[in-house]
């Protein structure tokens, strides 16, 4: 599906704004291989997936789709347009009571189709003082459903200082997305062990300055 001109302009505008205003850049992005990728990052603001997505090189960016909550992004026409047209988001229903499709399967099909996804394993925005919320099991089930996919841990540096919760005016600080080495679920690895290993890999990236 080719993007419409307004959607392309919005994409170009977002990437240019991020590059110019907050000097956004990717640090240590592992060179892409043949395997589809699940980019997992910390989640503190609505701007997170825009930052991660904008930090990727263009060809990589065009085949990367953010996974987001349908309850938030289906709520108004403008949000629907942004989610579907601009970011080609993979919307999943987070409420087990109302959903008709299995969210893991929805995302797995995108990966099997050869596209990459951005996934926030905390499941929701982290509005606490902790650096990382306990990871939800969704990422483990997804990794098991698509064993060929590689999981690339990432940390979005400084975005929580640029736009802290409750603030409406961003301050321009330098922002960067730091990537770690890809990991996979190892044979016989339990869910707890895997989630712990992933959380440690993410937190290890958070110590460095932008």
């Amino acid at each position: 599906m080719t993007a419409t001109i307004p959607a392309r302009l919005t994409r170009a505008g977002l990437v240019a704004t991020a590059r110019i205003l907050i000097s956004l850049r990717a640090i240590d992005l592992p060179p892409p291989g043949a395997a589809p990728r699940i980019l997992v990052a910390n989640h503190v603001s609505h701007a997170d997936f825009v930052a991660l997505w904008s930090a990727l090189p263009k060809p990589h960016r065009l085949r990367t789709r953010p996974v987001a909550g349908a309850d938030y992004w289906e709520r108004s026409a403008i949000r629907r347009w942004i989610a579907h047209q601009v970011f080609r988001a993979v919307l999943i229903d987070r409420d087990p009571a109302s959903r008709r499709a299995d969210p893991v399967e929805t995302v797995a099909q995108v990966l099997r189709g050869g596209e990459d996804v951005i996934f926030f394993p905390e499941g929701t925005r982290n509005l606490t003082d902790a650096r990382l919320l306990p990871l939800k099991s969704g990422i483990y089930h997804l990794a098991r459903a698509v064993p060929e996919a590689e999981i690339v841990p990432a940390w979005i540096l400084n975005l929580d200082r640029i736009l802290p919760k409750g603030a409406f005016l961003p301050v321009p600080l330098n922002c960067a997305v730091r990537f770690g080495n890809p990991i996979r679920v190892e044979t016989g690895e339990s869910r707890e062990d895997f989630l712990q290993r992933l959380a440690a890999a993410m937190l290890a990236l958070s110590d460095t300055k932008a």
Partner: protein
Amino acid sequence: MDRFYSPSAFVFYGLFAFLVLASLVARFLIRSGRVGGPTAQNLADRIRAWWVMIGVLALIFTLGAGAITLFFALCSMAALREFATITHTRRDDHDGLAIAFYLILPLQYLLVYFEVPVFAALLIPVYSFLLLPVVTVFKGEVQGFLTRVSETQWGLMVCVYCVSHIPAILTLDIPFYRYSAFTLVAWLILVVQASDVLQYVWGKSIGRHLLAPRVSPSKTVEGLAGGMLSATALGMALTPITPFLWWEAGLIALTVTGFGTLGGLIMSAIKRDRGVKDWGTLVQGHGGILDRLDSLVFSAPVFLHILAWGWM
């Protein structure tokens, strides 16, 4: 067409001629294999960045005082961004930082541009110093309070107040001086930046004794002396385009390069303490904008005061 025949225009013609020469020499050194690997890449990056920086400066000098003031306002913005990025400021400092970026910074440059020197001199050292911590006080977070408010104030002093002295030189109308103050801005930037480059060159070629090993692993006594003296000689050679006598030009050049060098050391100490090598990545091969601007930051106010007291 005057602006293409002004002394500052000829300074730029000279610089472009020099850049052509430098690019040819660098190409020869890299092609012949005398310089290789990461050093060659860094040399090529640095020269390319100089082309861009001198090109932009030449353009804004052609456009006039408004363009120069706006350019340095943008430099302040980028510099303050680099400074604030590596400070301890946290969520509770967000409002203070927003006021620094969106209110104080533009106001400072408006005061400079519309020639309100008294308020331009007081806004940051007095009023922002007294009032900006108040915004942080009402957030109620006292942990690291002095550190956090001092860092914001330091950022404003270094990145906004000091940098705004460069366009402020343009507002001086020096009696019995044939040329405009543009020439003096060009002279200052040329002498101070030449001192930086020449210190690097002298240091690489004959540098033996480290000046301050714990602060900067590359600055040497020989590099410092050679760079400052040769930049001073350059400043003296340009005496005809200044309102100074030859020995006055020498003393002033020595003073501004001295302050520039000390500024570089102070900024290095801040970087070292915060565990970063460069302030940012804005200027290819050089690091951040503060890595290029640090010496001008500390010399511009002194140069302005010398002119205001001695030649007005």
